[in-house]
């Protein structure tokens, strides 16, 4: 993560040590995870000992000290969702993304987690993709949502490619 960006976040919070958790949350949401450089920088800038930062970042589940994908998928496997077929949803997620619960793919595209209750059991089985709730999902729908994301990602990547120098190569193809 870019040090400048980290500094920006810290400055936005007036380098206030009492806002440590807020700052960490901001870095987490900008970058999807907390790299070590970021923690070291925060520790230096706020004069908060590293042991305290480690204590906090390992305490709260929101923080991730390992790289996370750009899209976060949470599948509820709580009791209500379980009896309504959460396992099938999970299997579909794994089949489409190739990512197992608790893991992230090497391209940092998807991270998959299971959760134990999302507080909306009546909607079960529930899947949350990038903060958006999908209730009563059936397998086909799960696949559809994820495929869309994948397509969007692919399109985005192509778009980026287009803008870069290799764009010509892509444009060469007449069918586009």
């Amino acid at each position, binding site marked *: 993560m870019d040090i400048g960006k980290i500094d920006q976040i810290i400055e936005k919070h007036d380098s206030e040590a009492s806002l440590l958790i807020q700052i960490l949350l901001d870095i987490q949401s900008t970058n999807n995870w907390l790299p070590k450089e970021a923690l070291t920088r925060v520790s230096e800038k706020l004069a908060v*000992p590293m042991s305290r930062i*480690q*204590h906090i970042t*390992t*305490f709260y589940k929101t923080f991730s000290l390992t790289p996370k994908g750009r899209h976060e998928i949470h599948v509820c496997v709580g009791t209500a969702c379980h009896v309504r077929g959460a396992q099938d949803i999970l299997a579909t997620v794994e089949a489409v993304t190739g990512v197992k619960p608790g893991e992230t793919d090497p391209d940092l595209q998807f991270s998959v987690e299971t959760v134990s209750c999302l507080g909306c059991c009546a909607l079960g089985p529930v899947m949350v993709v990038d903060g958006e709730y999908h209730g009563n999902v059936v397998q086909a729908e799960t696949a559809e949502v994820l495929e869309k994301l994948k397509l969007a990602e692919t399109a985005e990547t192509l778009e980026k490619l287009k803008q870069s120098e290799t764009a010509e190569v892509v444009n060469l193809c007449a069918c586009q």
Partner: protein
Amino acid sequence: MSEISLQVDGKQVTVEEGMTILQAARSVGVAIPTLCDHEKLAPYGACRLCTVEADAHGRTNLIAACQHPVEKDLVIRTRTEQLDRIRKVLLEQMLAHAPDSEQIVALAQIYGADPNRFEKDANFCILCGLCVRYCAEIKQKHAVGFFDRGAKREINFIPEIAVRECWDCKECFPLCPTSALQAAYVLTEALMSPPEPVAKGCGGCGG
């Protein structure tokens, strides 16, 4: 500062406001078992062995003597059947982690704690926090800290700080009631390279 008088095991005690019940009890020679208490460190209340019964406002509460400040007219009992039972269970849980800790074994004998009551857990730390607090409060180095939470909570050294500070300090070692700290340090040591020896005296003649 005003003085406060209370009763500890039937003895009338008058101490300064702001003192803890543990300090008040000690001042009249009443011993309360403790593990996480340290005279130089702020009260922490991790081990709960110092739990005592306190009567106040017509109710009896269980409180941690090392943390609770004295209050006017409190009636404290430091040894009752209920307290013995509480301490026994606490010690049994600690023995599951550190069955050979001298301090814990000695207390276990007093309270009749059974070392085999709970399944053994390979984590020797009882999370008393003495090492973490000593490093933070007294040395202000913060080389060791708590990680994770709940059943997974554990102490760990921060290797980057440990490599700078710990080689020549190790003052926390004797504080640990279970030797878990030394073990954690040895693991950390494997990650760090020893500091360059500082040349003493004249390098040329060796004097």
